[in-house]
Protein backbone atom coordinates (compact mmCIF):
# COMPACT_ATOMS: atom_id res chain seq x y z
CA UNK A 1 0.00 0.00 0.00
CA UNK A 2 2.63 2.54 -0.90
CA UNK A 3 1.17 3.43 -4.24
CA UNK A 4 1.13 7.12 -3.40
CA UNK A 5 4.77 7.33 -2.44
CA UNK A 6 5.75 5.62 -5.66
CA UNK A 7 3.43 7.78 -7.74
CA UNK A 8 4.88 10.42 -10.00
CA UNK A 9 3.06 13.14 -11.81
CA UNK A 10 3.06 12.71 -15.55
CA UNK A 11 5.65 14.91 -17.26
CA UNK A 12 3.00 16.68 -19.32
CA UNK A 13 1.11 17.60 -16.16
CA UNK A 14 4.21 19.13 -14.62
CA UNK A 15 5.15 21.00 -17.78
CA UNK A 16 1.54 22.08 -18.34
CA UNK A 17 1.44 23.52 -14.86
CA UNK A 18 4.64 25.46 -15.48
CA UNK A 19 3.20 26.89 -18.69
CA UNK A 20 -0.06 27.92 -17.05
CA UNK A 21 1.74 29.54 -14.14
CA UNK A 22 3.96 31.44 -16.55
CA UNK A 23 0.79 32.65 -18.28
CA UNK A 24 -0.74 33.68 -14.97
CA UNK A 25 2.34 35.71 -14.10
CA UNK A 26 2.41 37.25 -17.55
CA UNK A 27 -1.24 38.31 -17.36
CA UNK A 28 -0.71 39.58 -13.83
CA UNK A 29 2.00 41.89 -15.04
CA UNK A 30 -0.02 42.94 -18.08
CA UNK A 31 -1.97 45.61 -16.22
CA UNK A 32 1.25 47.55 -15.73
CA UNK A 33 2.11 47.13 -19.39
CA UNK A 34 -1.29 48.48 -20.41
CA UNK A 35 -1.21 51.51 -18.16
CA UNK A 36 2.33 52.35 -19.22
CA UNK A 37 1.31 51.63 -22.80
CA UNK A 38 -1.57 54.07 -22.59
CA UNK A 39 0.63 56.77 -21.18
CA UNK A 40 3.48 56.14 -23.60
CA UNK A 41 1.34 56.00 -26.74
CA UNK A 42 -0.76 59.03 -25.89
CA UNK A 43 2.30 60.97 -24.80
CA UNK A 44 4.30 59.89 -27.83
CA UNK A 45 1.69 61.27 -30.20
CA UNK A 46 1.57 64.53 -28.23
CA UNK A 47 5.30 65.03 -27.77
CA UNK A 48 6.31 66.56 -31.14
CA UNK A 49 4.12 69.57 -30.42
CA UNK A 50 6.68 70.76 -27.87
CA UNK A 51 9.27 71.04 -30.62
CA UNK A 52 7.03 73.62 -32.26
CA UNK A 53 8.23 77.15 -31.62
CA UNK A 54 4.84 78.77 -31.54
CA UNK A 55 3.48 76.33 -29.01
CA UNK A 56 3.76 77.13 -25.34
CA UNK A 57 2.48 74.96 -22.52
CA UNK A 58 1.52 78.02 -20.49
CA UNK A 59 -0.63 79.28 -23.30
CA UNK A 60 -2.14 75.82 -23.72
CA UNK A 61 -3.21 75.76 -20.09
CA UNK A 62 -4.18 79.38 -19.52
CA UNK A 63 -5.53 80.79 -22.77
CA UNK A 64 -9.10 80.32 -23.79
CA UNK A 65 -8.42 80.96 -27.47
CA UNK A 66 -9.10 77.76 -29.33
CA UNK A 67 -8.73 78.24 -33.09
CA UNK A 68 -7.20 74.96 -34.24
CA UNK A 69 -8.31 75.21 -37.85
CA UNK A 70 -7.72 78.90 -38.48
CA UNK A 71 -5.57 79.58 -41.56
CA UNK A 72 -3.68 82.59 -40.31
CA UNK A 73 -3.79 82.49 -36.55
CA UNK A 74 -3.89 79.01 -35.06
CA UNK A 75 -4.35 79.11 -31.30
CA UNK A 76 -4.44 76.18 -28.93
CA UNK A 77 -5.70 77.24 -25.51
CA UNK A 78 -7.86 74.82 -23.54
CA UNK A 79 -8.53 76.99 -20.51
CA UNK A 80 -12.18 77.44 -21.43
CA UNK A 81 -12.57 73.68 -21.62
CA UNK A 82 -10.85 73.20 -18.29
CA UNK A 83 -13.40 75.60 -16.86
CA UNK A 84 -16.13 73.77 -18.75
CA UNK A 85 -15.09 70.41 -17.29
CA UNK A 86 -14.78 71.94 -13.83
CA UNK A 87 -18.16 73.68 -13.95
CA UNK A 88 -20.05 70.60 -15.10
CA UNK A 89 -18.26 68.36 -12.61
CA UNK A 90 -18.75 70.74 -9.70
CA UNK A 91 -22.44 71.17 -10.45
CA UNK A 92 -22.85 67.41 -10.77
CA UNK A 93 -21.16 66.88 -7.40
CA UNK A 94 -23.24 69.57 -5.74
CA UNK A 95 -26.33 67.64 -6.80
CA UNK A 96 -25.07 64.08 -6.55
CA UNK A 97 -23.18 64.17 -3.25
CA UNK A 98 -26.09 65.08 -0.96
CA UNK A 99 -28.47 62.78 -2.77
CA UNK A 100 -25.98 59.92 -3.02
CA UNK A 101 -25.08 60.31 0.62
CA UNK A 102 -28.72 60.51 1.66
CA UNK A 103 -29.52 57.40 -0.33
CA UNK A 104 -26.53 55.59 1.18
CA UNK A 105 -27.66 56.54 4.69
CA UNK A 106 -31.18 55.38 3.91
CA UNK A 107 -29.81 52.11 2.54
CA UNK A 108 -27.51 51.30 5.40
CA UNK A 109 -29.43 52.71 8.37
CA UNK A 110 -33.13 53.09 7.73
CA UNK A 111 -34.61 50.66 5.26
CA UNK A 112 -35.43 46.99 5.60
CA UNK A 113 -33.60 44.05 4.06
CA UNK A 114 -35.92 43.68 1.09
CA UNK A 115 -35.96 47.36 0.16
CA UNK A 116 -32.20 47.39 0.38
CA UNK A 117 -31.79 44.44 -1.99
CA UNK A 118 -34.18 46.01 -4.48
CA UNK A 119 -32.58 49.44 -4.30
CA UNK A 120 -29.14 47.96 -4.76
CA UNK A 121 -30.25 46.21 -7.92
CA UNK A 122 -31.74 49.47 -9.21
CA UNK A 123 -28.48 51.25 -8.45
CA UNK A 124 -26.57 48.55 -10.28
CA UNK A 125 -28.81 49.02 -13.30
CA UNK A 126 -28.45 52.79 -13.04
CA UNK A 127 -24.69 52.33 -13.18
CA UNK A 128 -25.01 50.16 -16.26
CA UNK A 129 -26.85 52.66 -18.45
CA UNK A 130 -24.40 53.48 -21.28
CA UNK A 131 -23.12 57.02 -21.37
CA UNK A 132 -24.38 57.56 -24.90
CA UNK A 133 -27.89 56.81 -23.68
CA UNK A 134 -27.43 59.35 -20.90
CA UNK A 135 -26.28 61.81 -23.52
CA UNK A 136 -29.34 61.06 -25.58
CA UNK A 137 -31.55 61.61 -22.54
CA UNK A 138 -29.83 64.94 -21.94
CA UNK A 139 -30.28 65.92 -25.56
CA UNK A 140 -33.96 65.04 -25.78
CA UNK A 141 -35.66 64.85 -22.38
CA UNK A 142 -33.56 67.05 -20.16
CA UNK A 143 -33.02 69.87 -22.64
CA UNK A 144 -36.74 70.11 -23.28
CA UNK A 145 -37.45 70.31 -19.56
CA UNK A 146 -34.78 72.95 -19.09
CA UNK A 147 -36.12 75.11 -21.92
CA UNK A 148 -39.63 74.75 -20.54
CA UNK A 149 -38.83 75.67 -16.94
CA UNK A 150 -36.09 78.28 -17.32
CA UNK A 151 -37.09 79.88 -20.58
CA UNK A 152 -33.54 79.74 -21.86
CA UNK A 153 -33.32 79.36 -25.66
CA UNK A 154 -30.85 76.45 -25.63
CA UNK A 155 -31.38 73.45 -23.43
CA UNK A 156 -27.94 71.89 -23.78
CA UNK A 157 -25.77 73.64 -21.21
CA UNK A 158 -23.93 73.34 -17.90
CA UNK A 159 -27.15 72.61 -16.01
CA UNK A 160 -28.10 69.82 -18.40
CA UNK A 161 -24.63 68.24 -18.31
CA UNK A 162 -24.47 68.62 -14.54
CA UNK A 163 -27.82 66.92 -14.02
CA UNK A 164 -26.95 64.05 -16.34
CA UNK A 165 -23.52 63.65 -14.80
CA UNK A 166 -25.09 63.73 -11.33
CA UNK A 167 -27.40 60.85 -12.24
CA UNK A 168 -24.41 58.99 -13.68
CA UNK A 169 -22.17 59.41 -10.65
CA UNK A 170 -24.81 58.76 -8.00
CA UNK A 171 -24.40 54.94 -8.15
CA UNK A 172 -20.68 55.02 -7.45
CA UNK A 173 -21.15 57.57 -4.66
CA UNK A 174 -23.91 55.48 -3.10
CA UNK A 175 -22.01 52.22 -3.18
CA UNK A 176 -18.72 53.60 -1.83
CA UNK A 177 -20.49 55.67 0.85
CA UNK A 178 -22.53 52.67 1.89
CA UNK A 179 -19.32 50.66 2.25
CA UNK A 180 -17.88 53.45 4.37
CA UNK A 181 -20.95 53.56 6.60
CA UNK A 182 -20.94 49.80 6.95
CA UNK A 183 -17.31 49.96 8.02
CA UNK A 184 -18.30 51.96 11.10
CA UNK A 185 -18.30 49.35 13.88
CA UNK A 186 -21.70 48.33 15.20
CA UNK A 187 -20.44 48.99 18.71
CA UNK A 188 -20.60 52.73 17.94
CA UNK A 189 -24.24 52.38 16.96
CA UNK A 190 -25.11 50.30 19.99
CA UNK A 191 -23.32 52.67 22.32
CA UNK A 192 -25.16 55.64 20.84
CA UNK A 193 -28.56 53.94 20.90
CA UNK A 194 -27.96 52.87 24.50
CA UNK A 195 -27.62 56.55 25.33
CA UNK A 196 -31.08 57.13 23.95
CA UNK A 197 -30.27 59.21 20.86
CA UNK A 198 -32.53 59.09 17.83
CA UNK A 199 -31.30 57.60 14.64
CA UNK A 200 -31.09 61.03 13.11
CA UNK A 201 -28.72 62.11 15.86
CA UNK A 202 -26.85 58.85 15.44
CA UNK A 203 -26.32 59.54 11.75
CA UNK A 204 -25.37 63.15 12.23
CA UNK A 205 -23.21 62.94 15.31
CA UNK A 206 -21.69 59.46 15.08
CA UNK A 207 -21.81 57.88 11.63
CA UNK A 208 -20.95 60.81 9.40
CA UNK A 209 -17.88 61.84 11.43
CA UNK A 210 -16.73 58.23 11.69
CA UNK A 211 -17.17 57.59 7.98
CA UNK A 212 -15.97 60.93 6.67
CA UNK A 213 -12.85 59.58 4.97
CA UNK A 214 -14.84 57.02 3.04
CA UNK A 215 -17.33 59.64 2.04
CA UNK A 216 -14.49 61.81 0.80
CA UNK A 217 -13.22 58.90 -1.28
CA UNK A 218 -16.71 58.46 -2.73
CA UNK A 219 -16.83 62.10 -3.73
CA UNK A 220 -13.37 61.87 -5.30
CA UNK A 221 -14.36 58.85 -7.35
CA UNK A 222 -17.44 60.75 -8.46
CA UNK A 223 -15.20 63.62 -9.52
CA UNK A 224 -12.97 61.18 -11.40
CA UNK A 225 -15.97 59.86 -13.24
CA UNK A 226 -17.19 63.37 -14.00
CA UNK A 227 -13.88 64.56 -15.37
CA UNK A 228 -13.47 61.51 -17.56
CA UNK A 229 -17.00 61.21 -18.87
CA UNK A 230 -17.17 61.81 -22.60
CA UNK A 231 -20.27 60.94 -24.59
CA UNK A 232 -22.87 62.23 -22.15
CA UNK A 233 -21.27 65.65 -21.81
CA UNK A 234 -20.51 65.77 -25.51
CA UNK A 235 -24.21 65.52 -26.23
CA UNK A 236 -25.63 67.42 -23.26
CA UNK A 237 -23.48 70.51 -22.75
CA UNK A 238 -23.69 72.24 -26.10
CA UNK A 239 -20.56 73.03 -27.98
CA UNK A 240 -19.51 76.55 -27.17
CA UNK A 241 -15.84 77.11 -26.40
CA UNK A 242 -16.11 79.91 -23.91
CA UNK A 243 -15.99 80.50 -20.21
CA UNK A 244 -19.55 80.12 -18.84
CA UNK A 245 -21.16 82.91 -16.84
CA UNK A 246 -23.98 80.85 -15.44
CA UNK A 247 -25.44 77.37 -15.40
CA UNK A 248 -27.53 78.12 -18.46
CA UNK A 249 -24.49 78.78 -20.67
CA UNK A 250 -23.26 76.16 -23.08
CA UNK A 251 -19.74 74.89 -22.55
CA UNK A 252 -17.34 72.36 -23.97
CA UNK A 253 -15.38 69.95 -21.79
CA UNK A 254 -11.88 68.58 -22.36
CA UNK A 255 -13.22 65.13 -23.17
CA UNK A 256 -15.95 66.37 -25.49
CA UNK A 257 -13.42 68.51 -27.31
CA UNK A 258 -11.30 65.49 -28.17
CA UNK A 259 -14.32 63.44 -29.18
CA UNK A 260 -15.68 66.21 -31.38
CA UNK A 261 -12.49 67.16 -33.17
CA UNK A 262 -10.29 64.07 -33.36
CA UNK A 263 -12.15 62.88 -36.43
CA UNK A 264 -11.37 66.10 -38.32
CA UNK A 265 -7.76 66.48 -37.24
CA UNK A 266 -5.38 64.97 -39.81
CA UNK A 267 -3.02 62.45 -38.19
CA UNK A 268 0.29 64.08 -37.33
CA UNK A 269 -0.96 67.65 -37.57
CA UNK A 270 -0.51 70.14 -34.74
CA UNK A 271 -4.21 70.01 -34.07
CA UNK A 272 -4.03 66.23 -33.70
CA UNK A 273 -1.08 66.50 -31.34
CA UNK A 274 -2.75 69.11 -29.18
CA UNK A 275 -5.75 66.81 -28.81
CA UNK A 276 -3.40 64.06 -27.63
CA UNK A 277 -1.84 66.53 -25.23
CA UNK A 278 -5.31 67.15 -23.85
CA UNK A 279 -5.50 63.38 -23.40
CA UNK A 280 -2.25 63.45 -21.40
CA UNK A 281 -3.75 66.18 -19.24
CA UNK A 282 -6.91 64.13 -18.63
CA UNK A 283 -4.90 60.99 -17.93
CA UNK A 284 -2.79 62.81 -15.34
CA UNK A 285 -5.81 64.43 -13.75
CA UNK A 286 -7.84 61.24 -13.34
CA UNK A 287 -4.71 59.33 -12.32
CA UNK A 288 -4.17 61.72 -9.43
CA UNK A 289 -7.83 61.73 -8.36
CA UNK A 290 -8.08 57.94 -8.42
CA UNK A 291 -4.79 57.54 -6.62
CA UNK A 292 -5.91 59.75 -3.76
CA UNK A 293 -9.32 58.09 -3.57
CA UNK A 294 -7.73 54.65 -3.52
CA UNK A 295 -5.27 55.60 -0.80
CA UNK A 296 -8.19 56.71 1.34
CA UNK A 297 -10.27 53.59 0.64
CA UNK A 298 -7.29 51.36 1.42
CA UNK A 299 -6.72 53.20 4.70
CA UNK A 300 -10.33 52.51 5.70
CA UNK A 301 -10.11 48.84 4.84
CA UNK A 302 -6.98 48.42 6.92
CA UNK A 303 -8.83 49.78 9.94
Amino acid sequence: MFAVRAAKRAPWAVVGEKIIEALVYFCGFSAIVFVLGIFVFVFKEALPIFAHEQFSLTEFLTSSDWYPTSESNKRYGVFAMIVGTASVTVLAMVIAVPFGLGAAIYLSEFCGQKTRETLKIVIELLAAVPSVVWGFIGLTVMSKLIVQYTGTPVGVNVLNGGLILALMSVPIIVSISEDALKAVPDSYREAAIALGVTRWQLVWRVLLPAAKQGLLAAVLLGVGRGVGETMAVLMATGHAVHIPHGVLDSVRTLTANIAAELGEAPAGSDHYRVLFLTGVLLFTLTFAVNLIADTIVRGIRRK
Partner: protein
Amino acid sequence: MTAAENHIEVRDLRLSYGLKEVIHGISFGIRRHEILGVIGPAQSGKTSLLRCINRTIDFTPDTHVSGTIEVDGEDVRKVRSVYALRRKIGMVAPLPVGLPLSIYDNVAFAPRSAGLHRRADLDAIVEQCLRQAALWDEVKDRLESLGTKLSGGQQQRLTIARALSHQPEILCLDEFSIAIDPVTTMRIEDVLKELRKHMTIILVTNLTQQARRLADRTMFMWKGEIVELDTTEVIFGENPKDQRTRDYVEGIFG
Protein backbone atom coordinates in the same frame (compact mmCIF):
# COMPACT_ATOMS: atom_id res chain seq x y z
CA MET B 1 20.70 9.46 21.40
CA THR B 2 22.41 10.60 18.23
CA ALA B 3 20.85 12.76 15.62
CA ALA B 4 20.80 10.07 12.95
CA GLU B 5 18.40 7.94 14.91
CA ASN B 6 15.86 10.70 15.20
CA HIS B 7 13.16 10.98 12.59
CA ILE B 8 12.96 14.74 12.98
CA GLU B 9 15.77 16.84 14.35
CA VAL B 10 15.17 20.49 15.22
CA ARG B 11 18.16 22.70 15.93
CA ASP B 12 18.00 26.26 17.22
CA LEU B 13 14.74 27.01 15.44
CA ARG B 14 13.71 30.64 15.56
CA LEU B 15 10.59 32.06 13.97
CA SER B 16 9.36 35.60 13.84
CA TYR B 17 6.24 37.18 12.39
CA GLY B 18 7.40 40.62 11.33
CA LEU B 19 9.45 41.93 14.23
CA LYS B 20 7.84 39.69 16.83
CA GLU B 21 9.77 36.52 17.59
CA VAL B 22 7.40 33.70 18.56
CA ILE B 23 9.82 30.76 18.76
CA HIS B 24 13.06 31.53 20.50
CA GLY B 25 15.67 29.04 19.33
CA ILE B 26 14.44 25.59 20.33
CA SER B 27 16.24 22.30 19.75
CA PHE B 28 14.89 18.79 20.14
CA GLY B 29 14.57 15.47 18.37
CA ILE B 30 11.63 13.23 17.59
CA ARG B 31 12.23 9.50 17.44
CA ARG B 32 10.93 7.23 14.75
CA HIS B 33 7.51 5.73 15.45
CA GLU B 34 6.87 7.49 18.70
CA ILE B 35 4.00 9.72 19.71
CA LEU B 36 5.36 13.03 20.88
CA GLY B 37 2.81 14.99 22.89
CA VAL B 38 3.22 18.76 22.75
CA ILE B 39 1.39 20.62 25.47
CA GLY B 40 1.35 24.24 26.54
CA PRO B 41 -0.95 27.21 26.82
CA ALA B 42 -2.20 29.12 23.79
CA GLN B 43 0.32 31.37 22.00
CA SER B 44 3.25 29.21 23.02
CA GLY B 45 4.29 28.47 19.43
CA LYS B 46 2.95 24.94 19.03
CA THR B 47 1.01 25.47 15.81
CA SER B 48 3.78 27.61 14.33
CA LEU B 49 6.22 24.80 15.02
CA LEU B 50 4.11 22.36 12.99
CA ARG B 51 3.83 24.85 10.16
CA CYS B 52 7.60 25.19 10.10
CA ILE B 53 8.00 21.44 9.82
CA ASN B 54 5.81 21.07 6.72
CA ARG B 55 6.80 24.51 5.47
CA THR B 56 3.28 25.84 5.05
CA ILE B 57 4.70 28.75 7.03
CA ASP B 58 6.01 29.86 3.62
CA PHE B 59 2.51 30.96 2.73
CA THR B 60 2.32 33.45 5.57
CA PRO B 61 3.81 36.73 4.43
CA ASP B 62 6.49 38.46 6.44
CA THR B 63 7.80 35.49 8.40
CA HIS B 64 11.43 34.78 9.14
CA VAL B 65 12.76 31.34 10.03
CA SER B 66 16.29 30.46 11.11
CA GLY B 67 17.91 27.30 12.42
CA THR B 68 17.36 23.88 10.87
CA ILE B 69 14.68 21.23 10.84
CA GLU B 70 15.82 17.90 9.46
CA VAL B 71 13.44 15.17 8.42
CA ASP B 72 15.26 11.90 7.73
CA GLY B 73 18.49 13.87 7.93
CA GLU B 74 17.43 16.31 5.22
CA ASP B 75 16.95 20.01 5.94
CA VAL B 76 13.32 20.87 5.14
CA ARG B 77 14.32 24.29 3.92
CA LYS B 78 16.63 22.80 1.33
CA VAL B 79 14.54 19.87 0.06
CA ARG B 80 14.28 19.44 -3.67
CA SER B 81 10.51 19.28 -3.74
CA VAL B 82 8.55 20.94 -1.00
CA TYR B 83 5.45 19.08 -2.23
CA ALA B 84 7.14 15.72 -1.70
CA LEU B 85 8.09 16.91 1.78
CA ARG B 86 4.49 17.82 2.56
CA ARG B 87 3.32 14.45 1.30
CA LYS B 88 5.68 12.86 3.79
CA ILE B 89 3.84 14.72 6.54
CA GLY B 90 0.14 14.47 7.33
CA MET B 91 -1.36 17.56 8.93
CA VAL B 92 -4.66 17.82 10.81
CA ALA B 93 -5.80 21.33 11.70
CA PRO B 94 -7.78 22.21 14.85
CA LEU B 95 -11.00 23.02 13.00
CA PRO B 96 -12.26 20.49 10.50
CA VAL B 97 -11.92 21.50 6.88
CA GLY B 98 -14.03 19.52 4.47
CA LEU B 99 -13.10 20.68 1.00
CA PRO B 100 -16.12 21.57 -1.14
CA LEU B 101 -15.66 18.32 -3.04
CA SER B 102 -17.31 14.92 -2.67
CA ILE B 103 -16.19 12.73 0.24
CA TYR B 104 -14.40 10.47 -2.21
CA ASP B 105 -12.61 13.38 -3.88
CA ASN B 106 -11.64 14.82 -0.52
CA VAL B 107 -9.66 11.71 0.27
CA ALA B 108 -8.49 11.08 -3.29
CA PHE B 109 -7.29 14.67 -3.62
CA ALA B 110 -3.78 14.10 -2.30
CA PRO B 111 -3.05 10.91 -4.26
CA ARG B 112 -4.32 12.60 -7.40
CA SER B 113 -2.14 15.63 -6.75
CA ALA B 114 0.79 13.27 -6.44
CA GLY B 115 -0.03 11.90 -9.87
CA LEU B 116 -1.93 8.74 -9.00
CA HIS B 117 -4.96 8.31 -11.25
CA ARG B 118 -5.72 4.57 -11.42
CA ARG B 119 -9.24 4.10 -10.17
CA ALA B 120 -8.49 0.80 -8.42
CA ASP B 121 -5.60 2.32 -6.46
CA LEU B 122 -7.68 5.34 -5.52
CA ASP B 123 -10.62 3.18 -4.40
CA ALA B 124 -8.33 1.15 -2.19
CA ILE B 125 -6.74 4.24 -0.64
CA VAL B 126 -10.07 5.95 -0.02
CA GLU B 127 -11.50 2.90 1.69
CA GLN B 128 -8.41 2.26 3.76
CA CYS B 129 -8.05 5.86 4.93
CA LEU B 130 -11.72 6.26 5.78
CA ARG B 131 -11.55 3.02 7.76
CA GLN B 132 -8.45 4.20 9.58
CA ALA B 133 -10.20 7.44 10.47
CA ALA B 134 -13.21 5.48 11.77
CA LEU B 135 -15.51 7.09 9.24
CA TRP B 136 -15.99 4.38 6.63
CA ASP B 137 -19.12 2.79 8.05
CA GLU B 138 -20.93 6.11 8.27
CA VAL B 139 -20.20 7.32 4.76
CA LYS B 140 -19.57 4.27 2.61
CA ASP B 141 -22.98 4.57 0.97
CA ARG B 142 -22.68 8.24 0.11
CA LEU B 143 -19.12 8.78 -1.03
CA GLU B 144 -20.35 11.10 -3.76
CA SER B 145 -22.05 13.60 -1.45
CA LEU B 146 -20.33 16.81 -0.43
CA GLY B 147 -17.68 16.66 2.27
CA THR B 148 -18.79 20.04 3.57
CA LYS B 149 -22.26 18.70 4.36
CA LEU B 150 -20.97 16.26 7.01
CA SER B 151 -21.27 17.06 10.71
CA GLY B 152 -18.33 18.67 12.49
CA GLY B 153 -17.11 15.45 14.03
CA GLN B 154 -17.41 13.60 10.73
CA GLN B 155 -15.59 16.40 8.93
CA GLN B 156 -12.75 16.17 11.41
CA ARG B 157 -12.43 12.46 10.75
CA LEU B 158 -12.58 13.21 7.04
CA THR B 159 -9.72 15.63 7.57
CA ILE B 160 -7.75 12.87 9.28
CA ALA B 161 -8.55 10.47 6.45
CA ARG B 162 -7.26 13.09 4.03
CA ALA B 163 -4.11 13.55 6.07
CA LEU B 164 -3.52 9.80 5.86
CA SER B 165 -4.35 9.54 2.18
CA HIS B 166 -0.88 10.39 0.96
CA GLN B 167 0.51 7.74 3.30
CA PRO B 168 2.69 10.03 5.35
CA GLU B 169 5.57 8.92 7.53
CA ILE B 170 4.84 11.65 10.02
CA LEU B 171 1.41 12.68 11.25
CA CYS B 172 0.92 16.05 12.91
CA LEU B 173 -2.30 16.63 14.81
CA ASP B 174 -2.99 20.13 15.99
CA GLU B 175 -5.57 20.05 18.78
CA PHE B 176 -7.68 17.73 16.67
CA SER B 177 -10.31 17.16 19.36
CA ILE B 178 -11.43 20.78 19.80
CA ALA B 179 -14.45 20.45 17.56
CA ILE B 180 -15.54 16.88 18.21
CA ASP B 181 -17.34 14.96 20.90
CA PRO B 182 -15.58 12.80 23.52
CA VAL B 183 -16.76 9.50 22.06
CA THR B 184 -15.34 10.28 18.63
CA THR B 185 -12.19 11.55 20.30
CA MET B 186 -11.72 8.21 22.02
CA ARG B 187 -12.21 6.38 18.75
CA ILE B 188 -9.62 8.50 17.05
CA GLU B 189 -7.22 8.02 19.93
CA ASP B 190 -7.53 4.27 19.41
CA VAL B 191 -6.77 4.84 15.74
CA LEU B 192 -3.65 6.78 16.68
CA LYS B 193 -2.41 3.95 18.89
CA GLU B 194 -2.78 1.69 15.87
CA LEU B 195 -1.04 4.13 13.51
CA ARG B 196 1.97 4.50 15.76
CA LYS B 197 3.25 1.20 14.37
CA HIS B 198 3.68 2.77 10.95
CA MET B 199 4.45 6.41 11.59
CA THR B 200 5.81 9.08 13.81
CA ILE B 201 3.08 11.17 15.40
CA ILE B 202 3.29 14.70 16.75
CA LEU B 203 0.26 15.36 18.90
CA VAL B 204 -0.25 18.99 19.81
CA THR B 205 -3.00 19.07 22.35
CA ASN B 206 -4.67 21.37 24.79
CA LEU B 207 -5.89 18.41 26.80
CA THR B 208 -2.98 17.40 29.02
CA GLN B 209 -4.70 14.13 29.81
CA GLN B 210 -4.77 13.27 26.13
CA ALA B 211 -1.00 13.55 26.01
CA ARG B 212 -0.79 11.46 29.12
CA ARG B 213 -2.96 8.74 27.58
CA LEU B 214 -1.19 8.59 24.24
CA ALA B 215 2.25 10.10 24.21
CA ASP B 216 5.50 8.22 24.66
CA ARG B 217 7.28 11.44 25.43
CA THR B 218 5.79 14.84 26.16
CA MET B 219 7.14 18.29 25.49
CA PHE B 220 5.92 21.30 27.43
CA MET B 221 6.20 24.57 25.53
CA TRP B 222 5.67 27.98 26.97
CA LYS B 223 6.10 31.35 25.30
CA GLY B 224 8.10 29.98 22.39
CA GLU B 225 10.51 27.93 24.47
CA ILE B 226 10.74 24.32 25.54
CA VAL B 227 10.33 24.16 29.27
CA GLU B 228 10.77 20.43 29.51
CA LEU B 229 10.90 17.40 27.24
CA ASP B 230 10.90 13.97 28.81
CA THR B 231 9.04 10.70 28.89
CA THR B 232 5.37 11.10 29.64
CA GLU B 233 5.82 9.25 32.94
CA VAL B 234 8.31 11.87 34.14
CA ILE B 235 6.34 14.90 32.93
CA PHE B 236 3.13 13.69 34.53
CA GLY B 237 4.87 11.96 37.42
CA GLU B 238 5.85 13.14 40.82
CA ASN B 239 9.03 14.91 39.88
CA PRO B 240 9.21 16.85 36.65
CA LYS B 241 12.37 18.94 36.60
CA ASP B 242 10.65 22.27 36.22
CA GLN B 243 8.18 23.71 38.65
CA ARG B 244 6.21 25.30 35.78
CA THR B 245 5.64 21.88 34.23
CA ARG B 246 4.17 20.54 37.39
CA ASP B 247 1.98 23.61 37.81
CA TYR B 248 0.70 23.40 34.26
CA VAL B 249 0.07 19.66 34.35
CA GLU B 250 -1.77 20.00 37.61
CA GLY B 251 -3.87 22.78 36.18
CA ILE B 252 -2.53 25.55 38.38
CA PHE B 253 -2.00 27.82 35.39
CA GLY B 254 -2.59 27.76 31.66
